[in-house]
C-alpha cells in the first residue's frame, strides 16, 4: 500500500487526515497543492482527481478519494486494527457520521471566516462567525453534559473516534476567523483532551497542550 495525501499545509481539512494517520502510525507521502495563493485545486490536473475542486484528496494505491470525513472513515475501517476510531456498530456509526456532518458545518462557518479574514475569500464574515458560535454553543452544551455523565468525547464510546478528529481543527483555528472560544469552557477542555491523544501532531496555529495526569 502507498498512501499519498494531496495536501495544503494550512488546511484544517487536510490536517484531519495527517492527524489520524499520525495517531494510527501510518506512513504516507505528501504532494503539496498550492491552495493559496496559487489556486492549484482548481487546475485541470487537480480537477481530474476531484471534480469538486476541493482539498484534501487521498490516493491509496489506485484508489482516489476525496472529502475529509469520508477519508477518515476509510482509513479507520481499513487500517485501525483496534476498531476504535470508527466503531463497527450501527448506532455508533450513525453517531459518528452525525458529527462528521457537524464538521462540515464547522468548515462552512469557522473555516469560511478564517478564509475571509486571512486568505482574501469573499465570504460574509459576520454570518460565518455567527454560524460558528451557534455550533460551538451546542457543542459546549453537549460536552458539558457529557463530562457530567463521564463522557469525554463527542460520541458515546469511552474513547475518541473520527468524529473528534473531524470537528477538532476548525474549532481550534476559530480565533483566526475572529471567533473567540471564551464562552465555551467545556469545548476548550475537550480540545485539551484531543491534544493529549497519543500520536497527536500540531499544524500552524494549533499548539500542543500540557501533559495529562500520570496514572
Amino acid at each position, binding site marked *: 500500500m502507498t498512501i499519498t495525501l494531496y495536501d495544503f499545509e494550512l488546511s484544517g481539512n487536510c490536517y484531519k487526515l495527517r492527524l489520524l494517520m499520525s495517531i494510527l502510525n501510518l506512513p504516507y507521502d505528501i504532494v503539496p497543492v498550492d491552495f493559496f495563493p496559487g489556486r492549484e485545486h482548481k487546475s485541470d490536473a487537480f480537477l481530474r482527481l476531484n471534480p469538486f475542486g476541493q482539498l484534501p484528496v487521498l490516493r491509496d494505491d489506485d484508489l482516489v478519494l476525496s472529502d475529509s470525513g469520508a477519508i477518515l472513515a476509510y482509513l479507520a475501517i481499513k487500517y485501525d486494527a483496534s476498531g476504535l476510531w470508527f466503531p463497527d456498530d450501527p448506532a455508533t456509526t450513525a453517531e459518528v457520521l452525525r458529527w462528521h456532518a457537524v464538521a462540515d458545518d464547522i468548515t462552512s462557518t469557522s473555516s469560511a471566516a478564517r478564509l475571509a479574514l486571512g486568505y482574501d475569500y469573499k465570504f460574509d464574515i459576520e454570518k460565518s462567525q455567527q454560524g460558528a458560535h451557534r455550533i460551538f454553543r451546542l457543542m459546549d*452544551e453537549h460536552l*458539558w*453534559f457529557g*463530562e*457530567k*455523565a463521564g463522557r469525554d468525547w463527542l460520541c458515546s464510546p469511552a474513547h475518541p473516534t473520527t468524529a473528534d478528529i473531524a470537528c477538532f481543527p476548525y474549532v481550534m483555528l476559530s480565533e483566526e476567523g475572529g471567533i473567540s*472560544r*471564551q*464562552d465555551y*469552557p467545556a469545548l*476548550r*477542555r475537550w480540545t*485539551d483532551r484531543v491534544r493529549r491523544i497519543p500520536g497527536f501532531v500540531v499544524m500552524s496555529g494549533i*499548539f*500542543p*497542550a*500540557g*501533559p*495529562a*495526569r500520570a496514572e
Partner: protein
Amino acid sequence: MPLSLSDPHWYPIASSDDLPFRHVYQGQLLGRELAVWRADDGHVNVWENRCLHRGVRLSIGINEGQELKCQYHGWRYANQSAGCTYIPAHPADAPARRIENRKYPMREAFGLIWSAANDDQAFVPFPGAGDHDWFALRPVPVNAAPEDVVAGLARLAPDDQPADLLPGMAVRLDGVVYFVQPVDAGRAVIRGLLPQASGDPITILRHYNELLTRLRDRLERAAARKPAPEPLQPAYEKVSADLATMPEIAIPRGNTLPVLVRRKWQTADGVIGFELAGRDGKHLPTFQPGAHIDLHLPNGLIRQYSITNGPGDLLSYVIGVKAESASKGGSKVLVETVREGDVLAISEPRNNFPLRRDATRTVLIAGGIGITPLLSMARFLDQSSLPYELHYFTRSGESAAFKSELDVLHGAVHIHSGLAREAIQGTVNEVLGPHDFANHVYVCGPGAMLEMVTRTAAALGWPDEAVHFEYFQNDKVIDSSSAFDVELARSAMTLHVPAGRTILEVMREAGLTVPSSCEQGACGTCLTTVMEGEVDHQDVYLNKTEKASNTCMMTCVSRAKSARLVLDI
C-alpha cells in the same frame, strides 16, 4: 446603572469544575480578560490574560503544574506570585528585576471561583450561603447587558413571590441563587447555585439549563433590537520595552522581610530543616531554582542559605542547615537557639546560580549540604518533565538530607555514600563523560569537591559556560594594591583609599556609619550604588551581569580601576 471598571464587587468567574488538571481557563470580568488556572497544589491563579513579553494570551499557554508557560516565547510564571521565573532567550541569566504579571483577587467557595476588579472589598458570602451545601448550574453566557440579564432573571419570578435582589448582581429565586457575571458592557454569564438535594443531578441540571437557555434567547433577541453598548475599555498597563526584553539590572534593594519559623526538624543526622513562612499567610517572593536568601540571625550575623523548594511553591521556603559547623557561628545559633514560632528576617531571594532549561543533558552534582540548591533545580526540571541526573555524595556515616523529597522525583537520582576521594573522582569522571552540545553541569558542595568537578570537567573538554557553581564564601585572594579616591555624593566628601585599606574602613574612619556584616564580599550588606568610575569587583555576591553593569559594588572588598569613584552615600 452602567458598569464601572472599578466596581469593587466580587463576582463568580468560573465553576470549580472548570479548572481540571493542567488546564488554563479563559475568563473575563468587567472587560478584563483573565487566564485562570489551578496549580497542582490546588491553588487557583487569576491573572491578566497576557504574557508580559509580547502580550500573547496566557490562556493558550501550558499549565505545567506549578508554573504557567507562554506558548509564544516560553516565558514561565510561578504559581501564587505570577513572577517570571525563566526567559528562554536568556537561559543563563536570572532575571534580576522582579517581573510579575498582574493578578486579581481570588476565592474558591460554593463550587465557584470568585474574583474582583480590585482589592477594595473583602469577600463576603451571599446572604444565606451558610444554610446549605451548594452545587453549581451549567453557566450560560448571554450576549446582553448584565443589568438587563439581572432584570430578566427577576422577571422569571411569579407575581406573588417576587425575586429577592442581592448585592453584586445576584437574584434569589425559588431557592436558587443566580449570579450575573458582568463580562463586559454587552455580555454576561448567568451562574447559579442550587442547594444540594436528593434527585438525579443531571435531570435537575438539564431542567435549569433549559430554563436559562430560553431566557438567554429572549434576552439576546431584545438586545439585538437595541444599539450595542460600548465595550468597557480597561487600560492595560503598557509593558515597557525593557520589560519586553531582558530585564535590566536592578540594584538589589537590601529590603528584608519577616518570616516565621513554621517548622524545624532533623532531615538527616546533622542537617536541620527550617520552614520559613510569611507572617500574614501570603506567599513569599518569586525565586528561581538555585536562588538563596540571606538570613539575619538573632546574633546580628547574616548567612546565605539556598532555597530547596520546587516551582510555584511560595507559601514558605525550606532551607537546610548543617548543624556541625559550629565554627561558622551562624549555623550554631540557628540550630541551637532558634525555635518554631520565632520570627527571623530574610532578604528577597537572589540568584547567582541560574538553571538553564534548554539543556539536552543536565547533570547535578551535590556534596553534603550542597544538595539544597540542587534539590530545587531537580524539582523544577522534574515538574517540566525535562531530563536530568542528580548525583549526591555523602560522607561515610553521614545520611542523605531531604531523602523523602528526593524519593518522589522522577529523574535519575543517585546517592553515593562513603566513597573515598579516588572513588569520587572516578564517579565524577564517569558521570560527566565527554562534553556534548547543550550539556550542563551544576555543582554545589565543599570547596574541594567544587575544585575536583571543575578540574575534571575542564579535562574532559567541558567549556566554562557549561560548568555552573556558586560560592557562599569568598575564597579569592583580595588584591588591595590599588589606591584611588572615593567621592561620597550625598555626604559631600572625598576620601582617599590607600593600598591595603578598604573603602569601608576609610569611610568609617571618616566618621560615617555604614552597615556591613561578613566583610569578605559574600553577604551583600555593604552594597552601594555607584554613580561614576569603574569598579574593580572582588566579591562573590554580585552575579556576572550585575558586575558588568558597573552600577553597584561591595565596599568591603571591591575597589576602583579608575582614579576616582563616585558613590551614592
